[in-house]
């Protein structure tokens, strides 16, 4: 069951990713991008990290995808005009993939199957966030605030 599920999710994710990277229409690419994140969340569910999966959907589909779509809309005059494809990028990407794949296949210690695991509960994550990771949490809070303000300032109308 889970091998089948894994294969299905992997195919869905990679296909969506490829679509997001190559589709001509920007809007379609953005929507494929959202689908890809559903696939990644499914991976997370499969791997026992429910919370991360939900957060992933929440953040990426609820926020980032909408943001991207908005940006496309705000730069729409350009969205249909800017086309074209840089084939040298394909070569680089394929080369990187080949290198990574070779490195992974060469490493013997990676061909292991997972053991049984207690799924990590939300409560445990909350406890960790409030104890061991409280400083990173605060830093991320500051970062998000700064990003919010920074983004607002960036998109403010330029005074001419």
């Amino acid at each position, binding site marked *: 069951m889970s091998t089948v599920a894994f294969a299905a999710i992997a195919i869905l994710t990679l296909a969506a990713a490829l679509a997001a990277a190559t589709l001509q229409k920007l809007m379609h690419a953005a929507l494929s991008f959202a689908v890809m994140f559903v696939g990644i969340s499914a991976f997370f569910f499969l791997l026992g990290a429910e919370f991360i999966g939900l957060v992933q959907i929440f953040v990426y589909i609820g926020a980032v995808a909408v943001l991207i779509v908005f940006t496309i809309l705000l730069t729409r005059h350009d969205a249909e005009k800017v086309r074209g494809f840089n084939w040298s990028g394909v070569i680089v990407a394929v*080369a*990187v993939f080949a290198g990574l794949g070779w*490195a992974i296949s060469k490493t013997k210690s990676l061909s292991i199957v997972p053991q049984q695991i207690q799924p990590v509960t939300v409560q445990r994550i909350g406890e960790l966030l409030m104890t061991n990771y409280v400083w990173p949490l605060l830093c991320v809070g500051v970062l998000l605030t700064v990003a919010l303000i920074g983004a607002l300032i960036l998109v403010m109308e330029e005074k001419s």
Partner: protein
Amino acid sequence: MNSWITTNVWLIPAAPILAALLILALGKAARRQGAAYAVIGQLVALTMSIFAFVPTLHSHGFRSVQNFTWFTFGEQTLRIGFVLDPLAAAMLVMISLVGLCIFIFSVGYMAEDKNFSRFFAYLSFFSGAMLGVVIANSLVLLFVFWELVGLASYLLIGFWIERPSAAAAAKKAFITMRIGDMGFFLGILWLYHRSGTLLFYDGGQGCLENVGLLTLGASATFIALLIFCGAVGKSGQFPLHVWLPDAMEGPTPVSALIHAATMVAAGVFLVARVYPIFLVGAINGVTPSLTVVVWIGVVTGLMAALIAVAQFDIKRILAYSTVSQLGLMMVSLGVGGVAAGIMHLLAHGFFKALLFLGAGSVIHGCHHEQDIRKMGGLCRLMPVTFSTYAIGMMALSGVPFFFSGGWTKEEILHATAQWPRSHMPYYLMLVGVFLTALYMTRQIIFVFFGNRRAASEHAHESPSVMTLPLIVLAVCAILFSVVLTPAWRWLENYLTGHPARFDPHLLIQPMIIVSLALVGAGASLGIWMYRRAAGSDPIQQVQPALFRFLENKMWIDEIYDRTVIALAAIAARFSDWMDRYVWDGLVRGVGAIGHFFARLTSDADERVINAGVDEGTVGAHGFGRLMSRRHSGQIQTYLGALALGMLALVLLYAWLG
């Protein structure tokens, strides 16, 4: 309430600092509010200081310590803390009370200044930093506040930044103090290296407690001297005293705050605070480091008193008298009279603030004229200022029985006389006492008696917002003597932690006759010499060379100009020369070599391989184009290069592992 303040003693400096931030936030327009916040902040600090003072009365040798960890790096933790003991409590009350008087005085004195609120922000900031110095229980925390005090004094001395002399004075003060602070900092580092802690008191583990002191050993002398460097800089001791008289460029309340009550006292306070380090390895109460302290104090005290005799600027006379008095305190600390030194410090805080504010009142009344030769006959015009000023003058001169300065000076002389190593400091100090009486009499005669001169024609008494602090301080200067008398050594016992007893027989001691005679002699000589002086100085007429020597502050500034500063200038010029000729020459030489080769190549190019030139340029051009295309300014190109670099890294790791 009591225990509440002893555990939260940090609130005392926090109040003025908060006020300072608030005033700065309010901005320039909020003049009235700014002053109100500053005064309220100081009032809160005073109230809390008094609350903090109360529990230290209940038990003798009271000490409350609050330590906490500031940060941890590796195995080491840096801990800082606050301490409340009689020394700190007495200083807190004195600083906040005198500070409050000065704040209120400033409301009147600075009323017309355009940067009124900024002034109060600085004042509050200064006051908070100074209160912080007093309650710090760690050398590093003390150093932080110490530097904040330095910064605040820089800002305040240079408050009238548009005057070049004020800016120069501020810079001078800052740099001179930095020289001392460099030594102080080295001392801190050395102390930390030896004892591993910078806390003063830490339940027996602090650097001033037995365990800490034992680890110091022979290096204690050097550590003590290095720390003393900081005190020398801040307290204006010889040879770093030069900034203090120049700092009179600041507004008069600033002079009062910095040079009377608080900042210059910080040096004395510092020595008293780390006194156990000075005492390590003491034989009969004498150590090499303390001997240095004594002689520095003696030299400073005498030299400043001599210079003060020949000054004409009303504030400069007071400044030199401050330097002289600080020398006296240092002597007291050096010979073992810690309590006497601190008592004199507290008493001096009151009467010197009184004198400075009185001088401020005079300057205000004389329309910002500071030359005493142009004043005169003010005693009728400014009765309140005159009477309070006279009280301050008598306290400073050391008139016994009624004035606080008299008793404390007596204590110091007493302690100095008993110093086992030499009697010389005692005799020199007596000369200093005599000179003090002389120059104060001179000043008061010039300013308040005789005929009215240019500046005093239209003088007027200051408003009550300025005279009220004067009266308060004058009352303090007199009443303070009650707790200082030898018959009832309440303050001394409070500071040293013994119960006080009342013994009227000790009221009159033989040594008091000596100082009474000296003060009387000084004052009489002053009256005799200056009574007919009308705008000129009799010494100047009799001994012009000596007078010029003193008037020009013994040419110490000039000596510094010729030596230290000249040396720095030479070093700078040398560096400039090195840069200009040696390094530049090297570069030019390399350039010339390159040039030579270039010429060679060009010749070869032109003459030898003229045929291959076309081919070569085409190739070079092509390569340049290729490289230039790599640097296309396009993000994707860079990203691709990044990815390839990462790929190379991955392959390298996979290949190695």
